[in-house]
């Protein structure tokens, strides 16, 4: 067998592994269960992509991030690794059937946690030899993780059904508390832990207090005029991302600004992503939908126009800056009442306590009536009670826990009703309380008075590395001192005739290479 470095170069074009990758891969290849905690941008996915090439049998990757899945499948295919497939709700029924039929021809199978509840799929997987079972975003399995996914709690049953293949659990944002919980939820199996520090030494932190929206925009304009660098600006609202992108595009004539969010059509999304990757765009105003699986090395500035709902997401988004190791900055813009938007987001993630009684009563009626309804009528429930997909996921899990749903059928619970209602209400209160606590953490960080780097990372690791350049606005950072690499980007206007000729390598194309 060729050594790992040769393989890395052949399939991925890299000369050497990044911190942690090789150690994890070697442990995985030796057949151990591994828990890997690596900072964003360190190439987590390589830890199972390389084994997928070398190991016999198939590697199954469970990931809740559908867009990341399809991005990775595209990229792998672009690199010539074809035996890869993503099975999720984007795949329609017919296509899914065909995929299941030929499942054993794939070496790397991405699958959403919801899809793993499909009995047909499990049946197929059981017939195959699974050489590695990967749990991506493993913190989702923990109730204390910021992105708890009820479906992740069922993974241990699936692992059992597959006769305990080696497991690789990966996360970029697991505190020691969450790490322990991950192992507990996976039946206390023996795990080799590889935990790497989250702090990146080339990123400086800064928080700017603003008075208003207008104030934020003015400040952005000022910073980007002085430093015309590749930048990402995060928003919690699609509308605002579009609006600010338009304003900045008009004001900053020497920079190319655009926006990106989940509401755009898929082709436009691919185009914007690729333009940013190829430096055809300088500034991108985006929601959290952007950036997953994007490995652009030269992002110099990550701005949070809105703050996320917890520190973990913040760290993940900031981690997209300076992957090339050069001096980069995280900038948070904070105005009075900026805590309201994340509060509203948190509230929208769970159903209201007052709704529970009427929903449970309605379902009980369905269950006790003659016609038993299939669960796929959940869209009807969602419509009737005006609950969204995220809220339904929570409810479904609760209903399954209380035996109100069995094998996709509503079951009567009779006199247990009051007890169940109370229990669900209590769960909602607990979750809300927990999320508000997480929000308070990031709010406290924003208004902090001591080193931001220490405050940000202290719950993830015991020691903080010395920064390569500047630290934070509470230590030594100010924009006057920042000296990022600035490349001038020129947009020339040409005619379609010239552009077409250049694209098709006609005339003067020789002097290009």
């Amino acid at each position: 067998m060729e050594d790992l470095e040769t393989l890395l170069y052949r399939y991925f074009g890299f000369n050497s592994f990044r911190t942690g990758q090789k150690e994890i891969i070697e442990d995985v290849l030796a057949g151990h269960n591994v828990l890997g905690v690596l900072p964003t941008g360190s190439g987590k996915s390589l830890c199972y992509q390389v084994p997928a090439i070398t190991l016999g049998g198939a590697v199954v990757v469970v990931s809740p991030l559908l867009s990341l899945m399809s991005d990775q499948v595209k990229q792998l295919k672009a690199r010539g690794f074809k035996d890869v497939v993503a099975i999720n709700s984007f795949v329609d029924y017919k296509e899914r059937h065909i995929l299941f039929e030929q499942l054993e021809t794939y070496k790397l199978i991405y699958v959403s946690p919801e899809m793993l509840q499909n009995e047909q799929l499990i049946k197929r997987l059981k017939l195959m030899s699974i050489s590695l079972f990967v749990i991506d975003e493993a913190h989702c399995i923990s109730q204390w993780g910021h992105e708890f996914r009820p479906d992740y709690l069922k993974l241990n049953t699936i692992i059992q059904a597959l006769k305990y293949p080696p497991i690789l659990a990966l996360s970029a944002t697991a505190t020691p508390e969450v790490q322990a919980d991950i192992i507990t939820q996976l039946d206390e199996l023996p795990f080799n832990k590889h935990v790497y520090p989250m702090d990146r030494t080339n990123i400086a932190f800064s928080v700017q207090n603003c008075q208003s929206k207008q104030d934020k925009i003015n400040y952005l304009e000022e910073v980007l005029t002085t430093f015309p660098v590749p930048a990402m600006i995060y928003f919690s609202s699609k509308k605002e991302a579009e609006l600010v992108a338009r304003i900045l595009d008009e004001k900053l004539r020497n920079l190319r600004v655009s926006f990106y969010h989940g509401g755009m059509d898929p082709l436009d999304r691919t185009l914007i992503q690729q333009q940013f990757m190829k430096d055809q765009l300088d500034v991108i105003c985006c929601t959290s939908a952007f950036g997953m699986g994007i490995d652009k090395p030269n992002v110099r500035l990550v701005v949070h126009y809105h703050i996320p709902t917890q520190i973990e997401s913040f760290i993940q988004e900031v981690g997209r800056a300076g992957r090339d190791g050069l001096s980069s900055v995280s900038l948070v813009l904070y105005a009075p009442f900026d805590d309201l938007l994340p509060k509203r987001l948190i509230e929208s993630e769970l159903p209201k306590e007052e709704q529970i009684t009427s929903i449970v009563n309605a379902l009980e009626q369905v269950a006790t009536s003659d016609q038993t309804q299939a669960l796929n009528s959940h869209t009807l429930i969602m419509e009737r009670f005006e609950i969204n997909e995220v809220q339904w996921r929570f409810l479904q899990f609760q209903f399954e826990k209380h035996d109100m749903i069995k094998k996709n059928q509503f079951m009567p619970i009779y006199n247990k009703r009051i007890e169940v209602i109370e229990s669900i209400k209590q769960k909602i209160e607990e979750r809300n309380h927990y999320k508000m606590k997480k929000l308070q953490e990031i709010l406290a960080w924003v208004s902090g008075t001591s080193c931001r780097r220490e405050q940000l990372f202290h719950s993830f690791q015991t020691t903080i590395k010395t920064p390569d350049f500047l630290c934070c606005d509470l230590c030594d950072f100010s924009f006057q001192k920042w000296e990022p690499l600035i490349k001038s980007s020129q947009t020339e206007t040409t005619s379609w005739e010239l552009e077409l000729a250049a694209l098709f390598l006609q005339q003067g194309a020789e002097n290009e290479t």
Partner: protein
Amino acid sequence: MILDYIILQCIKKIKSERSTASIFHLLSGKRSAQTLQDANMYELTAYFGIYKGMHRSLFQQQIYELQKKKYITLDSQDNAHITGDGDAFLKKEEYNHLIKDLNGMEYTRNSDLLWLRLQLWIQTYTNIAHNNYFFVAITDNKEVQSWVKQHYSKYNVYIKEWLTGVYQELEYFLKQIDSLLADLFVERLSGYKKIGLTKDQLAKKYYVKETDIHIYQTIVIHKLIVHIESNYNNLKYIQCFYTDINSAEKFMTDSAKKTNRWLNKGFDLNHIAKIRNLKISTIQDHVIEIAFTDSDFVITQFVEQKTIDTIITAVKQLDTTKLKQIKNYLEGRYSYFEIRLVLAYSKTKAIGGE
């Protein structure tokens, strides 16, 4: 503006006999029997499916703007009426040279496929010509990807020749059309070290509304199809992107196709309804759809020649296609099915109307 113009033209032709929703279904290419019938009945087949994936809210916004400009008024049933100002705007015929090659009913399926093939082919060949085999395909469409793959495996020793050939033929075509159309076409293309612009970006750059970008793009592709069809023998390269999709069946819903097969086997309507477990009215809808699409379809198996003549005379006298009006005029002697069928028949034979 061009979308306004097209919608206004639809409103004028529909003569307030249908709600504005029918125009939305027409433009977004809804494959329902009703929409196909409307397209034929009101001679709006050119606009069928020219704006696929349009959002309902966006369409409503267009209608609202037309109202605000006082080009149309809306009645309580959401039927639009064109005003004098609206008529004057249409009479200027500003966009006629652009619109004249649109042929939605005929091209809508093929044009999407042609455009995707062209884009992916250009992206693939220009990258490979630079020895870059790693790029993210601009479309996930499996059909299109495998078409490009097949092309490549057949011609991979002639990459330079193909690039030059396609370039020359495209340039020749683009020189003949409006320069704005040519600009939009080229800017949208992706290739080696060049990622195409999004519609939003094109709109900003060329000071055109984003909705119009969509229409312009449809127009270029329809023009390209016309160009390929009429210069078939002189085009050595770009015709191959189109030839094998051109053989697609005429436009009919799948369900109507099935009914047609049973009809051809000699079954009557009641019988087919029973076999297919559908309502008789649904089967009747299919018959009307078939009558619209197939000009050789014989309707005397359902209505007598005398009835046909009577209904056609009534339609001419009333100068309307409103079913209820026709039915009342003929004192309820004929069913809606009979009237609709005759209307469909007369459209394909180009009699009646006008």
